[in-house]
């Protein structure tokens, strides 16, 4: 499969075989064409292009980091680094017995607060509905927010979480990665925090490099000695 990988730009023909066009490809006649800059992959019966650029488009069940933009008496609006705003209804935080006159939304989340949230529902007719009622979700109290390109999030996570696990182990930091490209790093020791930030920056800048995991590991180990 690896040898079928190709660098493509919009308009490039990925393949002409009887494949199913998936992510970032379209069928035009009998050709499957890439619609973005990226790396094409051919699986058993489907073709997809992993994008190297572009904004975050919400997907149901994605974990995202959001920043509270504003609120009405019934809901919050979250900036989720996308072309749409995240919509967080008050019932999700206060529970079923939420009452618009009795409960004040600002007591729970204020403008500027960061939250880890999950995209509960999204379709093209409405803004994405987000939820924070789950384990590991909710307001983020401490840590440093970093921005990386949303198309590089899978690289930061690595295969089965290998990359992020390695960074967390080497630095003792806790890293929350939002699919929207926002990452929160928190760590007890300042050195660990700096190292983790540097590693994440490295992944963001060199996402296309092969055996990046080894290079990041080398960087983490080297810094540890000095």
């Amino acid at each position: 499969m690896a040898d079928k990988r190709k660098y493509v730009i919009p308009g490039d023909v990925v393949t002409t075989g009887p494949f199913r066009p998936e992510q970032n490809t379209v069928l035009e006649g009998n050709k499957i064409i890439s619609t973005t800059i990226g790396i094409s992959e051919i699986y058993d019966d489907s073709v997809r292009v992993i994008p190297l650029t572009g904004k975050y488009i919400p997907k149901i069940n994605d974990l995202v980091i959001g920043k509270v933009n504003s609120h009405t008496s019934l809901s919050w609006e979250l900036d989720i680094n996308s072309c749409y705003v995240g919509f967080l209804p008050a019932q999700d935080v206060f529970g079923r017995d939420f009452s618009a006159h009795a409960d004040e939304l600002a007591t729970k989340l204020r403008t500027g607060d960061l939250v880890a949230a999950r995209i509960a529902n999204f379709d093209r007719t409405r803004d994405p509905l987000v939820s924070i009622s789950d384990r590991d979700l909710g307001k983020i109290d401490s840590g440093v927010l970093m921005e990386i390109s949303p198309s590089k999030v899978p690289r930061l996570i690595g295969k089965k979480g290998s990359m992020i696990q390695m960074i967390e182990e080497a630095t003792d930091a806790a890293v929350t990665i939002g699919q929207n490209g926002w990452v929160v790093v928190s760590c007890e020791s300042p050195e660990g925090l700096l190292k983790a930030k540097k590693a994440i920056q490295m992944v963001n800048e060199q996402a296309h490099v092969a055996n990046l995991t080894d290079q990041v590991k080398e960087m983490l180990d080297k810094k540890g000695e000095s």
Partner: protein
Amino acid sequence: MGGREATMVLMDENGKRCDGRTVDEPRRIMIKAGGLKNADGSSYIEFGDNKILVGVFGPRDVHPKHMSDTDTGILRVRYHMEPFSVGERKNPAPSRREIEISKVIKEALEPAVMLEKFPRTAVDVFIEVLQADGGTRCAALTAASVALADAGIPMRDMVAAIAAGKVADTVILDVNNEEDQAGQADMPIGYMPNLEKITLLQLDGVLTPEEYKKCVQVGVDGCKLVYELQKKALNDKYFGNKGD
């Protein structure tokens, strides 16, 4: 027009044009993808003596809200010439000509971009002509397409553009400023090279049906040359020359 241009030699006896090019030779073209930090996508093109910078934003919220479309995203293009882009200072306010070119470029890009994936949003393309020397709409369209790809806007194909024309009764490729002023015809062509479709075709001048067909063919062949350079610009930025 006037008498000055009429005496100008646009084609000498060896078939060389006023700037020394052959009939089917484009000017020097350099395209660079990226370069603007605050834009989502950007590009810079030097097309002969034309210098054009393009920035793309989006998909993003539409302002004013009433312009938004619940079925699809919208494309907005602004073509603007700097006051210092031409010999005599140009008033920076959008002129009739700039408004028309903005519309023409927008309509030439629309078949390529797939904005139906982003309803209620807008993609803004800002084209700034820093230096103009004939054929800016083609150069701007070429650069805008690279900037859109750089921004990650889904596209069916790139759009490459170049002008064909007629001077001294000969069909030529890539009309420069002198040839545009004194020549017999100017035909800007925008073309999607993989889908083999024309997205922009304008004609200023008089051509016979045979010349018209030849002009289109010359223009399309020229667009394929331009496309190779667009490809190279994107490969250089994203794959560091590793791209095929």
